[in-house]
């Protein structure tokens, strides 16, 4: 989103001010970008909420949500399905000035009377869980293979290039489907499949970076001092190319969240009782067909997803502009 700087030739943007590291310079540039700062704050809040709800400290998870409060504020087992969103209301009592506030459901309730807002909050944890598993898998595969291919070259490079070209050839969604046939259904397996499929792009970039860096002076110096190949690759070159991993992680997060939705709809991801955003959007197909239409679950889940995805998209873009302007798309 750093639009003001595009009038300058791109290459001049990379040059850091003297006395400031690449990261310091990038941080300085990011801080001036209002949208990036806002996105960063949103992402921090999102992570905070997701972890708290993952720990069950906020937003009851699905098996604790099977209750409703009766008019006296006590829990009952009776469920109020598909109640409309409301802010709650004041109930008149006989004593003046002692009216009782009955809390409502901010985003209504779903088919089993569970609070939709709490389910949207729970969805943050599920999306984080899927995205983290996926990222861990694809980043490890991509960095390791990219490093080997770029650093060693020769037949190792040929073999790895063959491997990623083959993986790229197979339609991603079908490969994921085939993998979940093999691994079984469920959110964890979907996340693994997304990771196993998603490494090609980053691997290509890492290979190019390692190829570029392996002839640099600092690598030659390290080798002259007797450092082994793996030490050079992962202690010397990797830190210098790690910004690419971070950019890829930020933009890959969106893919994980979107992927979960599609795969859950296909029936491979979240189970019906799990409060994932994909589950809530998928269920809306039947809920909107009801009379009157139940629109609040899909609106709630889509809004939650939209805010998080928008923040990651903007931050990813800003990071890319700040850390590596040459790396566009």
């Amino acid at each position, binding site marked *: 989103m750093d639009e003001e700087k595009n009038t300058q030739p791109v290459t001049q943007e990379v040059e850091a001010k003297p006395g400031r590291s690449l990261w310091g310079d990038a941080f300085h540039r990011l801080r001036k970008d209002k949208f990036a700062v806002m996105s960063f704050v949103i992402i921090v809040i999102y992570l905070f909420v997701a972890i708290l709800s993952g720990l069950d400290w906020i937003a009851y998870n699905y098996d604790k949500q099977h209750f409703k409060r009766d008019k006296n504020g006590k829990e009952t087992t009776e469920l109020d399905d598909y109640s409309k969103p409301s802010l709650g209301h004041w109930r008149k009592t006989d004593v003046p000035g002692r009216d009782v506030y009955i809390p409502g459901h901010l985003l209504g309730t779903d088919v089993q009377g569970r609070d939709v807002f709490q389910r949207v909050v729970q969805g943050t944890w599920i999306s984080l869980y899927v995205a983290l598993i996926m990222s861990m898998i694809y980043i490890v595969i991509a960095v390791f293979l990219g490093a080997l291919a770029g650093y060693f070259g020769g037949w190792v490079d040929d073999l790895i290039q063959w491997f990623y070209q083959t993986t790229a050839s*197979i339609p991603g969604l079908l490969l994921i489907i085939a993998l979940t*046939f093999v691994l079984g259904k469920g959110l964890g397996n979907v996340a693994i499949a997304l990771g196993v499929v998603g490494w090609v792009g980053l691997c290509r970039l890492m290979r190019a970076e390692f190829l570029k860096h392996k002839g640099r002076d600092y690598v030659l110096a390290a080798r002259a001092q007797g450092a082994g190949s793996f030490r050079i690759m992962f202690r010397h070159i990797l830190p210098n190319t790690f910004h690419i991993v971070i950019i890829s992680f930020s933009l890959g997060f969106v893919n994980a969240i979107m992927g979960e939705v599609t795969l859950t709809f296909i029936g491979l991801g979240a189970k019906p009782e799990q409060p994932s955003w994909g589950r809530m959007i998928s269920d809306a197909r039947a809920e909107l067909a009801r009379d009157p239409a139940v629109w609040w679950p899909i609106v709630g889940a889509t809004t939650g997803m939209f805010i998080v995805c928008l923040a990651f998209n903007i931050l990813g873009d800003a990071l890319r502009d700040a850390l590596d302007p040459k790396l566009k798309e």
Partner: protein
Amino acid sequence: MTAYIVRRLFYLVPIVFGVCLITFLLFNVVTTGDAIAKQRLGQHANQEQIDAYKKTHGYDKPIFVRFFTSIYDLITFNFGRSEVTHQKITSMIWDGMWPSLSLMLPAFIFTVMTGITFALFSALYRNTWIDRTIVVISIIGMSVSFLAYIIIGQYVLAYQLKYFPVAGYEWGFGVFKFLILPGLIYVLASLGRRVRFFRTVMLDEINQDYVRTARAKGLNQNVILFKHVLKNALIPIITQIVVTLPFLFMGSLLLEDFYGIPGLGAMALNAVNGNDFAIIRALTFIGAVMYVIANLVGDICYAFVDPRVELR
């Protein structure tokens, strides 16, 4: 030129072999015949039923025999029959391809045209409010789930406002009315990503030295943009388009399911729900082969379009 094409064709061999290998490993080593038989026949299948299933599907033979028969079957496009409907898979794919194409091809062409137009506007008015608005709307469009576009679009435009039929398909020109809404939703959902990519490509070109030279010798902005920048930007754009073509054949799982279009996407979804391994295997292989061929076509296009490409 011919020598170049022949050499590129030889590059395909290892990739197609790799695709065969991965498909084979997925369905034979990572998961075993027993596991597949159990999923197909249900949890309560007895041992005889499982053995019979394994025998009819060739899982009782040694692994090397299975590997070579599977490669032979795949490269001769002999995919066998569906495990659910028992139709021939090749004819199912042939029948399903046309509905998918009829939906995806016009929608895709429209997306690319609109995308390039917006990107040109963005590049022409770069760093003004026009450019910024286009970028912001693109990113907002990219942040909404495709499924939400489909469900909300169908509900609002078809159920509530009744501008379009809710779902359906027919052969012949009457199909047009069924394809407008899903096509529109495809365009909406994918436009943001395209605009952003095209804009990046064009801005990269605008920052090149030859543009500065052209400007220095006094050419006006429009001539530079349309004659110089667009022409050079077309190279990465063509790559992206060519690589997307196979996906147009394969259709869209979600769109076809929601709008009742009997294409390959809907077929894949049915196969997933019915545990039809044969169809998933066939679609995976055909998709991969089409992707490889599309890449080859893309490379050959370069050789024709761009005199700088070396025919090594």
